[in-house]
């Protein structure tokens, strides 16, 4: 039996400053939060409020100026290069606004890639990639390259790629930012369904208010600080008032 921690992510006084000559930009400034396992969390805030910075810190893509990030109760600052690569490959799935599929690889090959890094055996990884792509509705598009797919379809491939290693967390940075309203809604619903089905924690940076309807909690970010934390119900009540 694998041990299950209550919190998938914890941050302690997390800060990231960018020093640009005489100016210091406080992209994140003392964020302490706990995100529960299998929670669907939206990080909302205006442009420049620090959403992407939070995404990078929690995803182990960049080092904070101050403070700590724990994933599964492990302080990621204590990981060496090997362990950090493993964390990115196995524990975290990433979804980007610009999809970021490898342009020369087919949908299938894009989804296979993370399993090559985690050493999944060949037949098994083909089986899982096909299953995952079918799950996101692209069973008929396995051999298409990203350039031959619509934006929404590319984002589905990216979601399949992010989930195929059964990560603890999926980090999504404005996943609907490049999609039209309808396609955006489909992607939101897909993420929500996968969140419920696979019990994967989803952390979603966005300024798309449609996301509120599927979120368990919403973190409102402003100038690198958490302004308030609300549940979906609290947002609804506030909106009525």
């Amino acid at each position, binding site marked *: 039996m694998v041990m299950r921690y209550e919190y998938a992510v914890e941050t302690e006084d997390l800060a990231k400053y960018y020093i640009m000559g005489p100016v210091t930009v406080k992209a994140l400034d003392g964020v302490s939060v706990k995100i529960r396992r299998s929670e669907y969390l939206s990080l909302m805030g205006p442009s420049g409020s620090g959403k992407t910075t939070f995404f*990078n810190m929690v*995803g182990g*893509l*960049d080092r904070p100026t101050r403070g700590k990030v724990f994933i599964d109760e492990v302080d990621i600052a204590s990981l060496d*290069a*090997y*362990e950090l*690569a*493993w964390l*990115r*490959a*196995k524990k975290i799935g*990433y979804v*980007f606004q*610009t999809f*970021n*599929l*490898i*342009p*020369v*690889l087919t949908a299938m*090959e894009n989804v296979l*890639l*993370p399993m*090559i*890094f*985690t*050493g999944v055996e060949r037949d098994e990884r083909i089986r899982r990639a096909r299953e995952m792509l079918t799950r996101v509705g692209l069973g008929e598009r396995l051999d298409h*390259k990203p350039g031959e797919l619509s934006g929404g379809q590319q984002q589905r491939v990216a979601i399949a*790629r992010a989930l195929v290693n059964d990560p603890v967390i999926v980090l999504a940075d404005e996943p609907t930012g490049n999609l039209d309203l309808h396609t955006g809604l489909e992607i939101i619903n897909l993420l929500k369904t996968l969140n419920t089905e696979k019990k994967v924690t989803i952390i979603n940076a966005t300024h798309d208010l449609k996301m509120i309807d599927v979120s368990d909690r919403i973190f409102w970010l402003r100038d690198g600080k958490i302004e308030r934390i609300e549940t979906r119900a609290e947002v609804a009540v506030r909106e009525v008032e």
Partner: protein
Amino acid sequence: MSREESVKFPVSEAFSFSLESIKRRFGRALVTMASIILGISFLSFLLTTGRIMAVMRQQSGTAVQAYQIWMAIIAILICAVGIVNSMLMSVTERYKEIGTIKCLGARNRHVLEIFLIEAFFLGLIGGAIGAVSGWGIAALWQYLLPLMMQQGSAQTEALVIAARLWLEFNVNEPLIFLSNPLIGIALSVFIALISSIVPAYIAAKLSPTEALRYEA
């Protein structure tokens, strides 16, 4: 942490990733290879011409002049600069891709491998094209040109000489026949690898956030 929990990227996977990259971006590969093809083709042309002339004069060794070899070396140095330049461009074009595979678990070493294997193949293919074309041009030059210049019986005579030379050159000395293209290809691979070390290293050291922020 157990050995199981460590990212893998077998060299065979790196090879197929690099090959796909070359195949599906063949235009860019050709640009990178253009200078190599020209440089190696020139070298191969000189070596082959020298060898043919030596055979015609019944000498062993080669009739290439030292200054010609220097010209070839300079041509190849210029082609190295060309490779550095186009590899740097190719790294820049692929910032996003590098950032993405780092998110998927690639370590610096894996990125380095991908770019160096690509350089190896570009050197191999470019070298082969260059060596064979240089050799072919030299052979045509030596054998066909006299033929076209002659008329009547002189032409027949030239044809006989050409055939004899061809036999002597290709059948009696197959190693020498092969060695020039092989030297060209080996040199080409070597130069492609050396010129790609710095661009590949830059790609490998990119931080994922920097790489992802880049807008092509």
